[in-house]
């Protein structure tokens, strides 16, 4: 057991800052309500350090609170899709040595989502932040289908070019549209008995590896991902599947 609490300036003080709006007009009563509200959230102490009206009907608060709640760090389960990424050269060498052919990856930003920058960062030649994209990898055949690609189209293309892996990007997450769209993607694959044929990877700023697994993907990547992270995951997973077969 390793209990942990938020840290302000003394280990274990449980100090946290909050800011929020309540639908009441500004005044002493509003502040008192805010304080009670913070206490109800599990803070044993609560200071409303700032309050101001946003309109006649709304008030904004900044609060500091201290809590006895803790998390047992030892019981937290989470694992990244990739612990340590290989470099581009290492990935290429790995592919040459283990598969003796180029691997094929198709990707798209799907559904109504028109954000291309994320998937481009992973796939396009130029890459992102001085990390080359998959198109630059000599042993990878990468096809970026762009944005607003229907799930059906992406699957169709993956089958057509006999892809090893499919990359899906989801940036718009309001009202959980991404979850619905990603779930639909998995269902379509399952309906066509194609789920096991591809390695499925999803990425976007609100995606993580755990969420991806829950939806049915093999891996998920969030903000700050580079092509080498994804490439490493894919080639290792392919290798794992190859070994299983043998």
């Amino acid at each position, binding site marked *: 057991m390793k209990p942990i609490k938020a840290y302000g300036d003394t280990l274990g003080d449980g100090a946290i800052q909050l800011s929020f*709006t309540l639908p009441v007009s500004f005044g002493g009563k509003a502040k008192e309500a805010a304080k009670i509200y913070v206490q109800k959230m599990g803070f044993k102490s609560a200071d409303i350090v700032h309050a*101001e009206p*946003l*309109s006649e009907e709304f008030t*904004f608060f900044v609060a500091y609170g201290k809590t006895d709640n803790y998390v047992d760090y030892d019981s937290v389960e989470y694992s990244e899709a990739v612990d340590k990424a290989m470099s581009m050269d290492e990935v290429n060498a790995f592919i040459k040595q283990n598969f003796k052919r180029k691997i094929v990856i198709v990707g798209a930003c799907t559904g109504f989502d028109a954000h291309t920058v994320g998937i481009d960062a992973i796939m396009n030649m130029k890459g992102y932040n001085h990390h080359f994209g998959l198109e630059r990898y000599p042993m990878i055949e990468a096809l970026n289908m762009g944005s607003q690609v229907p799930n059906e189209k992406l699957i169709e293309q993956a089958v057509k070019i006999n892809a090893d892996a499919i990359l899906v990007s989801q940036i*718009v997450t*309001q009202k959980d549209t991404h979850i619905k769209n990603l779930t639909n993607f998995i269902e379509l694959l399952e309906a066509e008995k194609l789920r096991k044929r591809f390695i499925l990877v999803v990425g976007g*700023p609100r995606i993580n590896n755990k969420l991806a697994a829950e939806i049915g993907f093999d891996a998920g990547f969030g903000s700050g991902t580079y092509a080498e992270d994804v490439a490493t995951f894919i080639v290792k997973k392919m290798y794992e599947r190859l070994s299983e077969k043998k």
Partner: protein
Amino acid sequence: MEKKLKLSEKKIEKARTLAENITGKIQNYIDSHTTVAVERASLRLLGADGADKNGVPVPNIIADSLKDKCGFGLCKYYLNALAKTGLDVKELNEKIAEGLDISKIDMADLKSVEIKAKEEIEKLDKRLEENVSYRNKKLSEFAENEKKPWIYVIVATGNIYEDVKQAKAAASQGADIIAVIRTTAQSLLDYVPYGATTEGFGGTYATQENFKIMRKALDEVSEKEKRYIRLVNYCSGLCMPEIAAMGAMERLDMMLNDSMYGILFRDINMYRTFTDQFFSRMINARAEIIINTGEDNYLTTSDAVEKAHTVLASQFLNESFAKRAGMKEELMGLGHAFEMNPEIKSGFLMEFSQALMAREIFDKHPLKYMPPTKFMTGDIFKGYAMNTMFNFVSKATGQTIELLGMLTEAIHTPYMQDRALAIKNALYVHNNIDGFLEEIEFKKDSTIRKRAAQVLDETVQMLSSVKKIGLFKAIESGMFADVKRPPEGGKGLEGVFEKENGYYNPVEKYLKNKLGIADTAEAK
């Protein structure tokens, strides 16, 4: 305003001439074409409105029943139906919504169609004129409370009634302009939904009823704040001209309305977009609605330092296209942005330089300056600091329309408190640095002067290359925003029609007349 960057006037002139040249070629195409959206917009301006029980809007019902007639102009059929049935516009709309097919009504003589056209156009002109004069009256009544830059914020809850609460709060905090951002993917719908809406993703549907609801709310708050609060929506996508029509009728004050945004960022066909933008801009020009162009977006898909000149080049093109649509400079809110990677050493100097460059080159235009977005992250505290730098540049370089950055840009569409914090930041900076630019000048060899000169040089080069290959090819090869679009690709090409001999559109004629645009199609 005294010009401090000492840019070469000759080069600026050259860029303008190149742009004129480039858009001239496109304009030839535009003049001889119409689109299904232009026809529906024209119908709307004549009074077509409402929807059937499945929610199909009346202008779409008409266009669907007369699909092969677009090249001749659809207004004739609507006006004919009015003449033949003796119904008024409202009654006719109801009949159409109930199933009356106006394509089946015998054509009366052109004379009675023209009498009806004259009647309806007079009504339209009166309505638009009232809107313009109301706005001007309020602007002068509250002139002493106007501040510069105008503070522009977005509401986007998906529910128009919730948007109203957020908008009113923002106005009372100091916002001058409220934009109701549209729901995800509305730009790809080939119709404008009807009625008030309470569901949307990352935005709220643009409908005429929603326009009306927000307009009323902002008019109320304007009286209270003694500032005229402007209303903005998005005149882009497959229904660009229809949104313009609705905005003109409901007294919106600004419209996002770019000549290329739809092509680059929504994959809408270029022929469609160019034709639609022209008609939309005539409507906006007539209704004295300020347009906002979308150059800021280029810097999200391509590098803000390397591709700064694509913004300036596009501003010249947007300016030229707008001019062709009869628009005055005072209505051209050309876009640009503060989008450089915050890690760049002395990046601020480049941002400052480019913002001032835009100001000096487009000195009559209500420039629209956009905040950092791409490099905003979940670190809201760093983001707040970046927005402060942006506010500084915006005020110091005299921008007109300042879209405020939100500390939560990378997370969600703004909460009420996000907006309030942004306004507070802006008001603080605006007040605190007031008079800054008047106090300073730039050394001849300063980074700030050299950067602007370099961007202008690159712009002239770029426009020369675009002129050589033509704008279609330029877009196809990815010269704007690093996005490549083929001329025949994208959505909506099937809705573009060559104007046939005898094309009839009294709305177009009215607009061209009002705006002093030569009617080339007719002369032919």
